[in-house]
């Protein structure tokens, strides 16, 4: 770590190292942030090529952003960069969206929640809230009275208008009004209630004939303000939100939040609970990929395949129901372990599932994967080269379909994953078909993991005995990642030592996935927008939170 410190000090003498964090942490003056970021990315020895998380912060006396960077070339070391705005009245930070494209959306989110303006960002609109929203909700002094923001039943106007803040040579920032689309663009509206957007996503699509020119993502139709809600609740009370964000990765997400809190508390989770958690994660992954298979097929008109996918999914849900008591929103992981012991049938049921899966997968491939229509619609559609996948931080099966080794279980292992034998599925098709195929192959790998564990569930406690009755995290901040069904899910917690968190940020993989819709769809037919979306497989409540 010390050599990185030297390298970083060599770039910029004004960089201050913050001690006591879980990873290397630096603070950079706002004025020098952009040039510093350029070095971080382009310096051959540093090469921080992935921007994993952008966390807006309100420290009461100042506003700012925490950037979490990592490097694929140097063993996924994490670097946290803290940038504080100079003026709290008119907070501004230079954008890094020209370096890491993933920041295009991430910074808009920060603007939406904190009102921090990103200089030179090409499109400074709100991301999740209505464009006539008053105030910035995640600021600590936000006025939440319903009179300020009543339920408006009129449509949003001026949807085409956007703005960019350009800095000239003298360092003066000028506001420049822009339009999202050109004046003679023909814009087709997709959503927000469209059966093929897998939820309530809205795409405004400029088309030339039938060919897509540009996709403008309008998000926020299910933005529930979870991050703000967590600030008023205790740690055990915030756990259930993770089940309701990406409901197809409920176990993994909750696992992540619990791990983050356990890390802060220094809790040791019993071995039995660890094994149960990993098994539940993998079962969840299987059920998610089965749903994804069914929906991809249904979007192409293959309703039969949908029924087949759901048949096996029901079997997984039965396993969940017996142990957790619910088919969805399981609420199973708790701080220090899991809430209830396994059902006596658990081992038998999991074995039955593993036994039938290979045969069923063959059936799926016969039914859909080899189908000429499916191939025509998926192969060489929605190309996403590896460099773009890294730049847009597309993790999960979609990233691995672009041959990017980004599986958090392998590259930043957690829980008992280092002991397990499984392969990271990598395909180099870079197209929708590769993404679809990665999912199908990952089901096999998940079964392999379950096979190793199902006969080796150790006896012992299901929950750590030393979990305090009132959970108070020490002052500080933590960032934890897991591999959810759709990519790397991250949780950032900042605590001031109270019963409630000071700030919680959920870094969702789907938010990045939807960020490449414009890139993937441009040049394809408008009908391909549906299949590209299906193969990326985003879950909207995970995007909007």
């Amino acid at each position: 770590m010390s050599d990185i410190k030297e390298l970083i000090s060599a770039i910029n003498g004004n960089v201050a190292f913050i001690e006591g964090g879980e990873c290397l942490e630096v603070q950079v003056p706002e004025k020098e942030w952009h040039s510093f970021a350029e070095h971080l990315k382009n310096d051959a020895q540093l090469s921080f090529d992935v921007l994993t998380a952008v966390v807006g912060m309100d420290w009461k006396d100042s506003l700012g952003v925490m950037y979490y960077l990592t490097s694929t070339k140097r063993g996924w070391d994490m670097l946290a960069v803290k940038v504080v705005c100079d003026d709290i009245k008119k907070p501004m930070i230079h954008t890094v969206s020209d370096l890491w494209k993933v920041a295009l959306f991430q910074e808009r989110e920060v603007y939406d929640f904190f009102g921090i303006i990103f200089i030179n960002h090409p499109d400074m609109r709100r991301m999740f809230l209505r464009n006539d929203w008053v105030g910035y909700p995640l600021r600590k002094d936000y006025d939440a009275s319903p009179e300020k923001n009543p339920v408006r039943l009129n449509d949003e106007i001026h949807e085409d208008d956007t703005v960019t803040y350009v800095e000239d040579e003298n360092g003066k920032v000028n506001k420049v009004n822009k339009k999202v689309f050109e004046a003679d663009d023909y814009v087709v509206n997709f959503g927000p209630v469209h059966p093929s957007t897998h939820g309530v996503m809205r795409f405004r699509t400029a088309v030339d004939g039938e060919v897509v020119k540009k996709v403008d993502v309008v998000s926020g139709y299910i933005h529930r303000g979870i991050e703000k809600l967590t600030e008023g609740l205790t740690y055990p009370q915030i756990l259930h939100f993770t089940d309701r964000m990406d409901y197809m990765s409920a176990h993994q997400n909750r696992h992540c939040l619990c791990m983050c809190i356990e890390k802060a508390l220094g809790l040791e989770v019993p071995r039995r609970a660890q094994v149960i958690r990993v098994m539940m994660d993998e079962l969840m992954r299987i059920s998610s990929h089965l749903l994804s298979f069914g929906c991809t097929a249904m979007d192409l008109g293959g309703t039969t395949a949908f029924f087949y996918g759901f048949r096996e999914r029901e079997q997984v849900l039965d396993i969940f129901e017996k142990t957790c008591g619910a088919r969805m929103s399981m609420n199973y992981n708790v701080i220090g372990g899991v809430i209830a012991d396994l059902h006596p049938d658990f081992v038998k049921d999991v074995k039955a599932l593993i036994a039938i899966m290979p045969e069923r997968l063959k059936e799926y491939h016969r039914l859909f994967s080899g189908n000429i229509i499916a191939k025509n619609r998926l192969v060489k559609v929605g190309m996403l080269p590896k460099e773009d996948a890294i730049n847009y931080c597309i993790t999960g099966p979609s990233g691995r379909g672009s041959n990017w080794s980004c599986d958090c279980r392998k590259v930043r292992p957690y829980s008992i994953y280092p002991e397990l034998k499984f392969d990271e599925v990598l395909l180099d098709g870079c197209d929708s078909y590769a993404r679809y195929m990665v999912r199908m192959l990952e089901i096999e790998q998940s079964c392999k993991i379950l096979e190793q564990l199902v006969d080796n569930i150790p006896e012992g406690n299901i929950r750590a005995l030393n979990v305090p009755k009132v959970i108070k995290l020490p002052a500080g901040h933590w960032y934890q990642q897991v591999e959810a069904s759709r990519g790397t899910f991250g949780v950032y917690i900042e605590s001031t030592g109270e019963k409630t968190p000071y700030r919680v940020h959920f870094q969702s993989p789907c938010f990045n996935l939807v960020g490449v819709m414009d890139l993937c769809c441009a040049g394809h037919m408008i009908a391909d927008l549906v299949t590209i979306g299906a193969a990326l497989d985003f879950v909207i409540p995970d995007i909007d939170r």
Partner: protein
Amino acid sequence: MEVNIKSMKHDDFKDNEYIDKLVEELNATGANVAVGNLNKLINWGISNSLWPLTFGTSCCAIEFMSLGAARYDMARFGFEVARNSPRQADYIMVQGTIVHRMAPVLRRLYDQLAEPKYVIACGGCAVSGGPFKNSYCVLPGVDKILPVDVYIPGCPPRPEAFFYGLMQLQRKIKVQKFFGGVNRKEKREEFFAEHPEERGQID
């Protein structure tokens, strides 16, 4: 009087009082034999071919998909023709949280449904805002902007709960007055009083 549907016995329903009350109201004014029988016939038709407008915003929508799949198979009751256009649907099934940005969209879709139309609020979020009730941008229940016929609690409701709710709607439809009752045309002036901005734009 018992209101019977084919799928479930009258006594198996937990709350029969409100249906009894509806029947009482209906009987109080009386109905012409011809109109009454026509009503019965039409209601029998509607209640067995309820076409939902899917409006799934979150988790409940996935459970609704399970309903459509083979294990729960809602086609048994005539609910399976999920429509994506409000012009073709009988009722709107609100599954999931409704936030400020979505509220005008939901209201518009409801307005576009043809009469007679019904609303089912599925899941804690649609019923009352659920776990997100205190959020700055969540609607505390869809009944704030729409008249709701049936509430199905749960987070998300089990498929069996969905069926129970849908059958309640079937029973409610069985006792409606199709002629002169639910199938009302919105009065022109009443509409303009509610939406003054539309005056002059639609004629």
